[in-house]
């Protein structure tokens, strides 16, 4: 039934309203990154009328952007070794490598759970699910002791392993549901044609589950990117991920909101790029299974 003009206008307005509502925190946070202290804390609050500055970014990243309205002087906000560029790199390494690790293991595990019948399969799935219910702090402290003994504290390898393990249950469960949605008859036909399990997995099932894998990878990446507890407990000065560095802007004499906002605004970008890169697959992945046979 064709919509009336007023209905169309209403829907458009409602759409923009929803977008504005959800986008406002990002806009406001980003705008804080471009303010100096006087404008951040001005009372009554200023939303648009402030003099923009790049000083917060310069301070956080230890660089000079050299714009007319900025400053060419830079400092190190953490007081010595917390310039953000290497810290962003730490986060990128940990998040991407742990995602690769989780997805590699989870894909194989999920395929087995989806296609193979063996005793205790359902119990195993339930156990995987139950690990998501465990509070991370329950394992963070034992993990600290183990990692200290294995010399994995404050190393990329240590944090990649932990984030990979942390994301594994989620990835297994998600991927299993994606594999479940691919008809098992395809596998059976291929088996009849003489293909091995590995060939079927590699040549047939994996390409069909590409969207689901991309969706799972994005979620793993974002969870690792934003994870705080393990990153705090298992690192010291060698490695610092973005959330941990962000917390260092809380000082004994107040919070450096401008610096924190600059870091937060910058930290959105890599996660945004990852989502953009896999966007095509992501849409397919997220809608996989919505239309059943």
């Amino acid at each position, binding site marked *: 039934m064709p919509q009336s003009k007023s209905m169309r206008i209403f829907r458009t307005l409602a759409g923009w309203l929803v977008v504005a509502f959800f986008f406002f925190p990002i806009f406001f946070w980003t705008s804080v990154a471009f303010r100096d202290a006087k404008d951040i*804390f001005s009372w009554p609050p200023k939303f648009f009328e402030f003099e923009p500055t790049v000083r917060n970014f310069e301070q956080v990243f230890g660089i000079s952007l050299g714009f007319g309205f900025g400053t060419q002087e830079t400092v190190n906000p*953490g*007081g*010595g070794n917390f310039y953000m560029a290497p810290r962003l790199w730490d986060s990128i390494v940990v998040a991407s490598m742990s995602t690769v690790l989780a997805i590699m293991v989870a894909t194989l595990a999920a395929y087995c759970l989806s296609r193979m019948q063996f005793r205790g399969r359902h119990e195993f799935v339930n156990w995987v699910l139950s690990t998501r219910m465990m509070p991370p702090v329950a394992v963070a402290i034992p993990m600290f002791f183990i990692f200290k003994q294995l010399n994995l504290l404050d190393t990329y390898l240590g944090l990649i392993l932990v984030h990979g393990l942390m994301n594994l249950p989620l990835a297994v469960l998600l991927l299993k549901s994606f594999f479940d949605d691919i008809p098992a008859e395809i596998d059976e036909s291929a088996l009849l044609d003489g293909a091995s399990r590995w060939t079927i997995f590699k040549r047939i099932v994996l390409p069909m589950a590409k969207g689901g894998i991309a969706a799972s990878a994005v979620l793993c990446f974002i969870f690792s990117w934003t994870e705080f507890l393990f990153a705090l407990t298992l690192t*010291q000065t060698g490695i610092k991920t973005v959330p941990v560095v962000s917390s260092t802007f809380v000082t004994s*004499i107040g919070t450096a909101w401008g610096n924190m906002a600059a870091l937060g605004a910058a930290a959105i970008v890599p996660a945004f790029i990852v989502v953009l890169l896999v966007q095509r697959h992501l849409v397919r992945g997220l809608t996989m299974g919505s239309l059943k046979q």
Partner: protein
Amino acid sequence: MKDSVRKQYLASITDKFVRGQLGRREFLRAAGKLGLGAGALGMGFGNRPFGAFSSARAAEELTPNPEILKWLADVGKPFAGTTLKLATESTPPSNAINGQLKKYFEEATGIKVEIEVLPLEQVLQKLTLDVASNLGTYDLYYIDQSWAASFSQDVFDPREQYSAKADLAMPNYNLDDFLPALVDGIAKYEDRWVGVPYDIPIFIMIYRKDIYDKLSLKAPETIEELYTNSKIITDEMGPKVYGTTGQMKSGHYSLECDWTAWLWGHGGSIFGPDGKFTGNDEKGVAALEYWTKLKATMPPGVDGWTWDGQGQSVAQGVAASMLSWGEFFPYFDDPTQTKVSGLCEVAVPPRAMSLRTVKETGYGEIPGVGHQGGSSLAVSRYSKSPDAAWIFMQWATCADTQALITTLGGGTGPTRASVYDDPRVLAQARVGAGTTRHLPVVRETIAKHMGSEPDLPEWAQLSSDTIPVSLGKYFAGSYGSPKEALDDIAKQVGEVLKG
């Protein structure tokens, strides 16, 4: 040139440079005459994000005493190549050392120092893990005064270290120079020193002189006067400007800090000599009633603010006074950060109505309106390199380094008596970023008005959870009366102490 004359001259030209009375070229030339190295010529540095380092920029040119550097080079030689680790809150001293001073130590000794800067509660988490594991992940502990009892057996007593290792003892380190009140309030648990006093944020009265003058008011000398002044200002200037402000966020340690100031100021105490909670006695109830009255003169958002929001309410001109950490004052004086530069003045905290003696309290609690925060620095018993850590600790807390911290970091009160009189520190006592003009009041507050929390292992939980959560509920209207709220706190404290 004598060292003291050199310091005087350096302080004088630094001050002129900061005030803009001396050009960069002239400053560098004069500094060069004093033998400042090539590193001193790099002038490209800026402000700390939240004021602490927005001090006199030229003060960066101040370098450690050459005699101390020579001692470091001699004594540190056997430890070259060692790496020391310290987890600390982001405080002015730690940031000054981490950002600008540790390079001198590292160059002189060959000892590498890694300083992990974290929010206070995460420092506690890291230290607790380190102590529980005995693994010696950190060589030095930053110990907040409320944790002194908990960590007292996990660190070396610095007096023992100093006397036991004569070959590592810094000449003229002078343990007696630490302000005795701070040793008692921050660094001592029973008979042991739990490190040496490292920083001392303390409550002082900060008020807007222009507003006080306009309304013909004078700095509050008593607690009752503070209320009267605050009410007058709020009645006259509200809702644009309120008389005073607070750090009253429900469930946060800051709320407990405010509470103790009013409790002690009314003659009350947290504990009695028998170790039982006494915050709910007659004096305690009077304090909470007063505080409730005073809150009506504060800005509406006050029960969502920690010291951060409280400080910003003054910095933005919303509140005309605050009884809070003196560390904020240099930030308020920084014209690039706030609207109130040059408009604020300081005074000692309002006089208490009556004060209990230490004997009338429990767990070494020291009543006083000038609530003291602060921390100690100590060498961990589990450190793999305790001697190297001890050398670093002496250097970080010696008078020369403390003077540099105060001039570079601006704001925090020195913990040594001699530093208050150091010419480099005195030269910064003028309106502007990184001022030290509040330090005489800080010193007087430490000596005469300081209040210190009790030392008991359960205090970290009581001060950061039990008490502020219930006080938050009280201000949210969950209790029928102040007495009911305080009785409930007494019950909860009793349960925690029972274990």
